[in-house]
């Protein structure tokens, strides 16, 4: 589904990603871990098409298409979803109105009829259960005055509504208490199928107790320096990142 080859990206001339290689197949869950500043969020942003980042080398194919050629909205319409680490507030625009615009633009791109108000609300009701989100929250201005947990739940709710084939969760666990973490993870797990794939970007192992990854990759200084299964995450939890840093840094000096 997603194939990243030798991806280099920089911001304001400073290289952040220095040759990422990653293959993600349908039905898989990949966790990207790493210390602060290793480039995890940059990877998520570059895949979603944030324009501050300049791709300087490498290629990314998504479902056979050159992802880097597509505008951010077209990447979304093709099925790439980014759950934001810091969801953005849009005053005066209700979540419902926002999502209806989004869902119908995605449908139009895919050659489907737009959903009328009734069908849209029915779909919303169904998906609301997944993340135990309250209707009242959805009639309020998007993310404005939402608690940290409400924002993240709303992200997963949007993901449920848009039915992406590749979901990228950027530090979705940050700022969540244990109950919210459980609810959000449940939502993600229920949306998993053999047709879609998930990339979980996280600093802590905690989230991976709930969303169990098939593969774990450690990002350091803009490269994937170690890959493994979920046991790797447990090892990191126990030993921290320093042993990997040392391994990489000493290899570099030799």
């Amino acid at each position, binding site marked *: 589904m997603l194939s990243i080859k030798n991806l280099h990206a920089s911001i304001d001339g400073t290289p952040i990603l220095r040759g990422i290689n990653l293959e993600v197949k349908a039905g898989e869950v990949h966790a990207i871990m790493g210390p602060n500043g290793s480039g995890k969020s940059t990877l998520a942003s570059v895949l979603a098409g944030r324009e501050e980042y300049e791709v300087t080398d490498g290629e990314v194919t998504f479902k056979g298409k050159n992802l880097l050629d597509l505008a951010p909205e077209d990447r*979304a319409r093709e099925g790439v979803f980014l759950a*934001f680490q810091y969801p953005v507030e849009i005053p*005066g625009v209700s979540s419902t109105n926002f999502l209806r615009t*989004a869902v119908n*633009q995605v449908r139009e791109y895919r050659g489907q009829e737009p959903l009328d108000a009734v069908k849209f609300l029915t779909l919303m009701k169904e998906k609301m259960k997944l993340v135990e989100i309250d209707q009242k929250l959805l009639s309020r201005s998007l993310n404005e005055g939402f608690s940290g947990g409400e924002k993240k739940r709303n992200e997963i709710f949007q993901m449920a509504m848009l039915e992406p084939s590749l979901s990228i969760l950027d530090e979705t666990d940050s700022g969540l208490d244990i109950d919210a973490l459980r609810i959000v993870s449940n939502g993600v797990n229920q949306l998993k199928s053999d047709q879609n794939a998930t990339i979980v970007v996280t600093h802590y192992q905690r989230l991976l107790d709930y969303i169990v990854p098939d593969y774990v990759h450690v990002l350091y200084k803009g490269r994937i320096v170690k890959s493994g299964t979920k046991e790797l995450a447990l090892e990191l939890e126990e030993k921290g990142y320093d042993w990997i840093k040392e391994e990489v840094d000493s290899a570099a000096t030799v």
Partner: protein
Amino acid sequence: MSKDNSILEELTSKEYEHGWSVNYEADEAPIGLNEGIIRWISAKKEEPEWLLEWRLKAFRTWLTMKEPEWANVHYPKIDLQALRYYSAPKQVKKTKNLDEVDPELIAIYERLGISLNEQKRLQGIAVDAVLDSVSVATTFRDTLGKLGIVFCSFSEAVKEHPDLIKKYLGSVVPMTDNYYAALNSAVFSDGSFCYIPKGVRCPMELSTYFRINAANTGQFERTLIVADDESYVSYLEGCTAPQRDENQLHAAVVEIYAGAHAEVKYSTVQNWFPGDKEGKGGIFNFVTKRGICAGDHSKISWTQVETGSAVTWKYPSCILKGDYSIGEFYSVAVTNNYQQADTGTKMIHIGKNTKSRIVSKGISAGKSQNSYRGQVQVMKRADNARNFSQCDSLLMGDRCGAHTFPYIDINNSSAKVEHEATTSKIGEDQIFYCNQRGIATEDAVALIVNGYAKEVLNQLPMEFAVEAQKLLALTLEGSVG
């Protein structure tokens, strides 16, 4: 930053939708401005002597007045002697019967999306259609007449309700109030009049649709709304003009009188031709609008959505004379390309326990300049006056300007006056967030701007609100990436 600019340049803005014009055989005054022209207009309208005298008095005072220069707008001096002050389609008959109105004139309004056919009406809106210098038709006069409501062109009102006109004309905006109001008082050609009798709630929205068609012609019309005690009316105003290379002047006067316990809502969607992308052409919209809450517990509410005009100079105001009277001003002013707007309100608290509320939302894009200018004045006797003002500015791109000029003048220590102001930029983050959900950039901007202006748009009557939302999106099309 650089990204903003490249996107700004990438996109071209959409053409003005109502930029067309038609040819009609016109009954015109000669070009120029002098007492002779004023006599010509007055004679053309078969006016009584007192009204001619009133016009001449306004004109003579106007000659001694200077064009105001305090507004934050810059434009070439208008040669008032090069303008024509009266132009009317010859087909306009002195008829009250809608069936006899020339189909060509009806077609002009159909093309603007305004139906003058009473049978076709979808919403309860009565329309007075003003084309250049005259009213061509007024709908639902009979229906309204049964309730004692008078709704007609100003010219007819002069003939049929001279007492009301004599009593209220110039009572809220004195003929010599300011340079443009005085000019209007001298040369005004037509407009709308409405009178709601005591205790009557007007069952439909009343509206005036102003259309400029002729070239080199100024439009000077007056609207006078009188709401007697315990009455209610909601009034709408719409305006469009053809796309021309030269600037055209529109200097109107609107006066509202509200008696005790009466309520008047006045909503405007102003979409005069704004000039092209290089700032060529466009309407100079220099308008005086004022209402008086004359009786206790009366209320006047102004709502305006300003998207058009090359230069706007306009301050719909409320004189809160009656005790417990309420004045409101809700405004969204959008400027794009080279447009300039200096708009706001005045709330003058005279009565006790009077309240006013000001919500102004400016949106500037392109190379435009957008100013809010507002005054809150509390007089000595106005015990317990309350005012709340909120002035927000939204900037799109980095070549436009937003300015706020609030004036506060308090002469009574029991007054409570609050002023809040914010300035923000449409965030790249907001647009990216929308993009990431599959929403195209243009639609994202429309969504964000409509959300920002929601508090004001909510004040508009339903069918108008939808129009206004579309218009906002259209005006800003191509203004940000």
